[in-house]
């Protein structure tokens, strides 16, 4: 398969639930969505509840039929069984067959993805080791805690060495140590050139892991870009000083706003002109500046701002 084709390509994709007999009415869960995810990216899909993220993922996996538009994975239509062999999926709120042990489940799903027995004999212990489930692998899945089940879910998504992995809330129910492990696994996948598509509402996780993010609201794509593009500077600057003079407030006078002192310096809201002025004042007073950091909105703040703006726009 051509490595130059995008891992995920969606064009004008729509899904309408509950249409009437003649195709009218219904709830538009995904609305004329177009997006592309390049190979080897770690891609985040964000949006408030009901934004259509899960519907989009299900259409990509053939679990739901699009009302219109088209979608391709790894250069082939989404229903193509050969392509689906190259995709790993960890759904949200999954329920694995309770009558299987961890090893049996991995073998089952591995074989369903076309893996031969000898490959599975090598892969199953590797993947169990990777997700930290080697010791519990012979227990029935019904005996697992939520966190353990989540780890097994990740294992089954990885068992057949897919080229594209779709993770729906991958750290749901996982403890902080487990989350760090998941991040490490995703990082490892990225290094191997695997495309990772993450659907999550844990924005801190997404911010830490993803290269690119798409934000959906009411079935539409409202923002797309790298994390830096989505988290603009907020005008606050953090100054690190060699030593904090006792008359710092006097030196700065009434420059800027929202002064906030800290152990090794201060933070202040400044315009570009005020920033130059602030540096001049500090240098004139003989204060040694060790560093200046332009503050940004974090992803959560940016997300909330964007969603509120969209909802207000929709209400008007």
């Amino acid at each position, binding site marked *: 398969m051509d490595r130059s084709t995008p891992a995920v390509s969606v064009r004008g994709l729509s899904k309408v639930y509950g249409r009437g007999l003649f195709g009218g009415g219904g709830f538009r869960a995904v609305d004329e969505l177009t997006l592309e995810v390049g190979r080897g990216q770690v891609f985040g899909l964000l949006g408030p509840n009901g934004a259509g993220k899960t519907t989009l993922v299900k259409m990509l996996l*053939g*679990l739901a039929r699009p009302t219109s538009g088209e979608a391709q994975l790894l250069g082939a239509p989404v229903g193509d069984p050969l392509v689906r062999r190259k995709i790993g999926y960890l759904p949200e709120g999954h*329920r694995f067959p309770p009558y299987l042990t961890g090893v049996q489940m991995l073998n089952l799903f591995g074989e369903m993805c076309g893996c031969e027995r000898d490959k599975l004999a090598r892969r199953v212990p590797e993947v169990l080791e990777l997700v930290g489930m080697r010791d519990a692998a012979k227990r029935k899945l019904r005996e697992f805690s939520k966190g353990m089940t989540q780890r097994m879910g990740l294992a089954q998504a990885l068992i057949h060495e897919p080229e594209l992995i779709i993770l729906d809330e991958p750290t749901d129910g996982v403890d902080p140590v487990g989350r760090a492990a998941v991040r490490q696994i995703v990082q490892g996948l990225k290094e191997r050139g695997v495309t990772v598509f993450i659907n999550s509402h844990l924005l801190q996780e997404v911010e830490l892991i993803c290269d690119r993010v798409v934000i959906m609201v009411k079935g539409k794509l409202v923002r797309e870009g790298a994390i830096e593009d989505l988290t603009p500077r907020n005008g606050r600057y953090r100054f690190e000083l060699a030593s904090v003079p006792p008359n710092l407030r006097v030196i700065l006078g009434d420059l800027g706003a929202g002064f906030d002192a800290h152990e090794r310096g201060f933070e202040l809201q400044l315009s570009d002109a005020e920033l130059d002025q602030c540096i001049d004042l500090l240098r004139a007073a003989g204060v040694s500046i060790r560093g200046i950091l332009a503050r940004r909105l974090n992803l959560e703040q940016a997300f909330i701002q964007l969603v509120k703006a969209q909802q207000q726009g929709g209400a008007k």
Partner: protein
Amino acid sequence: MNRAIVRALLRDAYYQVVDNLGFRILLVLFLLPGLFFLLVSFRTDGIWVVGTWQLYPDWLTSGRATPPNAEALEQLLQMRLDNIVDSVLSVFDLFASVFAIAAVSFFVPQMLERGGADVVFSKPVSRLALYLSRYVAGLAFVSLLAVVLIGGVFSGLWLASGYFQPRLMWAIPALVYGFASLHAISCLFGVLTRSSIAAILLTVVFMPINYGLHKAFEEHAVEQHVAAATDKPAKPVSAASAAFAVVLDAYHLVGPKNGDGERIAKALRERLDYVEPEFVDEDLGLTIDASPEGFRREPRSALRQDGLTWLAPHPDGGGEASWRFKAESVERAGELSAVSKALRKELGVDSKPTIIGEITGRRFEWTEQRGQESRLRRRWLVQINDELLTVDYDAEAAWAAREDSERMARAFTSAWQLEGDAKRRARTASYDELFAWDAPWRFNSVLSILTTLLFIALTLALGWWKLSRIDF
């Protein structure tokens, strides 16, 4: 779909079955009949527990003034055991169907549960394959139970009672066949409702309705068959009854005939065991399966001329015993009484009523002197409409009184079956008897199999069609 996927799905079906609590409970219950027949042996000298405690020593002969001989006792034992096994299996057959449906109806709804479906249906396996794998899981469930039940009963009876009946094994495919259509229905209800409880309830409701409709059809079909075969004038029926009869006929064509499993197994068994009879006369309903050991048929004889003759040479080389079947047309009803009366008068012996098949006739026995020789003679007289059938047994009296020649005579008697003419057979026919490979469509086993398989295929196709349209 490659072999790895098929293997994976079958193994998954197996794991699902053996993990099922209902399966384990049923497995234990279904082991009980086999265990019972292993611990309790049925013999001619009584019922024995663990081969040590003898209970009911006269369980076969109770109520008989004269105990039958050893050979008759063995036959009686076989008949009793046949009845016991039939009763046990028919109880467990119903039990298995109802409980197995209850135990496997959740297979499909569980697969479609939110969360579970996302995992399974996102794999590169078609929905049809996944759906069929759950259907196969149900069949595997019942097959394993059937093997345990029937295999256990067969082994127990063989080891403890010496009752070796490989034909019992036919009950395994019969049970699975009967279950196959019910399970297809349960899978369909599972897809339509996506609820285990609803699937169980709807299937359990379907079972008696289906059974009732087929039972009504069978009654109606037999009634129609009898009317046609006996030229009975048709009774006037209301429009509602006539419409209902059409509905029954239509349902017979489209509905699953899971109750025919045992009949089909019997028909197959008979087909496989079929041996061309030695002699058949359709008009009289006379069949002679085979010449018993030691007898040979006189090839030139004909039933409606001189009669059919079988000869058995004297074991010591002196003389022969003979059986002769002869049929002749008689003018009117009551001829048998007149012939019997004349014979009674001529011979000076009383006749005994005798039953051959479903037909009652008269039997005479006397000794005849032929010069120096004393001959034992027996004559049966049976009238079937305007045909008078005479069966003559003729043997040297001294020889015929011996036990081995008496055994030969009994063997010959049991080798002939006399069911009477077509009208008589039609009057007493049951659906089971009329059910055959070459019977008219209402009783035709090929039609039964094909329409039931078609029903299963269509039901599964409908379930798959619905499944393919589900958005998870």
